[in-house]
């Protein structure tokens, strides 16, 4: 069976999506909706970084929002206490969140599945409580941070898009190299990967470090757009949103997280106007996608194009499924 995930069509589609976003400022003049698209790009960065960890390497982390918060507070504290702007703050955020991600990746190496999810969940909650409680450093209502481009929406949108595109190119190069194959091997069969000589310690830590750095950069950029760093960025609900976007878009594909994040951020605004909580709709979709369409939106599109049945059929044997 041919799969959409990481096929040439998948990579091409991802760049088409980015191209479409580049045209948005030509058609949309509303400051409000430009802000929505910028937020969508922020979530697309988080989604793509989480996808590298969960969708590609098979490490189901619950901490993408926590790493965004690490990045946000790195640049926020540098600005607030040392007067340093985003040009130093954002690279510093990348370094700090990469270091924290390296550490967390290192200590959770042996954990998989639910254990890894629980540990990363615990990590992000501790971090959020510590940040929210250290008010001498982090202030009561969050840190106010300097804006970029005088707060003009269009340049900010292109900055975010540029960073996301650069990341997308690097991700493609990574996935098409030997390292990409190692990551997929770890996801599909860890024991087999070890047996074939894949240094899983090294590549799991690598995936964790890259993903955390990416989330940190996204978080740092986003607070310079919001001009406020607050512990709200690290809420489990934010992680829930990122996971929803990737699951609905299609885990393990490169286009799915982008499409999921952008579409759902816009949909969230539309739902807000109707007075329905967006997470109510998204979580219902997550359950349905998880239950019936394992490859999300991207998988469903590919299946429809092939004329295959939309819902997967039982594949494993009796002995396997009852084990």
């Amino acid at each position, binding site marked *: 069976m041919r799969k959409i995930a990481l096929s040439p069509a998948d990579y091409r589609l991802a760049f088409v999506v980015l191209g479409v976003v580049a045209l948005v400022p030509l058609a949309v003049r509303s400051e409000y909706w430009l802000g929505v698209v910028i937020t969508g790009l922020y979530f697309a960065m988080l989604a793509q970084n989480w996808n590298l960890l*969960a969708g590609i390497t*098979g490490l*189901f982390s619950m901490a993408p929002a926590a790493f965004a918060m690490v990045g946000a507070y790195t640049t926020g504290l540098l600005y607030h206490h040392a007067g340093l702007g985003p040009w130093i703050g954002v690279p510093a955020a990348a370094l700090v969140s990469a270091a924290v991600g390296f550490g967390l990746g290192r*200590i*959770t190496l*042996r*954990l*998989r*599945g*639910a*254990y890894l*999810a*629980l*540990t990363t*969940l*615990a*990590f992000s*909650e*501790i971090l959020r*409580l*510590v940040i929210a*409680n250290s008010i001498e450093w982090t202030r009561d209502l969050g840190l106010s941070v300097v804006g970029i481009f005088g707060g003009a929406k269009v340049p900010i949108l292109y900055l975010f898009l540029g960073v996301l595109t650069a990341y997308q190119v690097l991700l493609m190069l990574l996935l098409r190299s030997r390292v990409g194959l190692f990551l997929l091997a770890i*996801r599909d069969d*860890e*024991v087999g990967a070890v047996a074939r000589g894949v240094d899983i310690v090294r590549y799991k830590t690598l995936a964790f470090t890259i993903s955390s750095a990416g989330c940190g950069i996204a978080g740092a950029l986003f607070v310079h757009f919001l001009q406020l760093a607050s512990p709200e960025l690290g809420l*489990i*609900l934010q992680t*829930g949103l990122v*996971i*929803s976007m990737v*699951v609905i878009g299609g885990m393990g594909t490169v286009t799915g997280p982008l499409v999921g994040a952008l579409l759902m951020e816009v949909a969230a605004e539309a739902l807000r106007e109707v007075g*329905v*909580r967006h*997470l*109510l709709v*998204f*979580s*219902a979709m*997550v*359950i349905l996608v*998880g*239950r019936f369409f394992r490859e999300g939106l991207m998988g469903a599109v590919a299946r429809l194009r092939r004329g295959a049945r939309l819902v*997967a*059929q*039982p*594949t*494993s*044997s*009796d*002995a*396997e*499924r*009852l*084990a």
Partner: protein
Amino acid sequence: MLILEILFTGLLMGSFYALMALGLTLIFGILKIVNFAHGEFFMIGAYAYTLLVLRAGMPQVPAIVTAMVLGAVVALLMERLLMRPLYTGVIGAGALRDEYAIIVTFGLSLFLINLSHQVLGPYPIKGPDLVGVSRVELLGFFVSPHRLLASGLAALTLGLIVWLIRTTVWGKRVQAVAQNRFGAAIAGIDHARVSALVLALSGGIVALSGALLSPLFHAYPDVGAFPAVKSFVVVVLGGLGSIPGSIVGGLLLGVLENFGAIYVSYEYRDTFGFVILMLVLLLRPQGLFGERAREV
């Protein structure tokens, strides 16, 4: 005397941690998955009890029973709609199975939280006490009689469930399916039905904890987050799937937290559990009573 008081109130809280963790560990034992929607059954119980007593004027005891039944019914629905695929072959095995379970239960958790937000609003409602008296003196210090009674009920339920699983035929079936689903199926045990019953039991006792603790923690959409993470901590501490582990772990966490809150820092009391969780996972991943997992 202070130490005795901290120990005692810690045990009161610990009996609830044990009860909630038991609900989580039962599901892990039988399905080998962690239920990330665990806290939402607590929320369902808290809301059901609070609203039935305050809005519908139902007496406390039938309201508690109804809350339990509601929790069990939602758990049965969850089993039928979302957990069945885990053993009907649609999902596959190993890591894929874990991933599926996390996605659907986490999705369910978000769904239930947001559903109650949408329907009932964000405002906390304080649950009614079981007894009118506000405090009684015991062993030289004061405790709330509601907490005393509620913890007694929690301990009673714990004992009842341990008895059920250890001695009855039904409990032996549960043990059989937990040990080897395939083997149990060959021996003629209806494993799907056993799983459904265990999930209903788990939903029921977690909803019971929610109802009994609603005077303390109130009823609001996100109320389940705190009991869920505490239960995660307890089951990991005691060993996933181990019944004695979750009871000892629950009491231990209740006491440790209470001492930590008084002697270390009150603001950071909720972080102790997380620190314990991370330490256990790193140093002794199988927990106090768990068995080391083997891979073929």
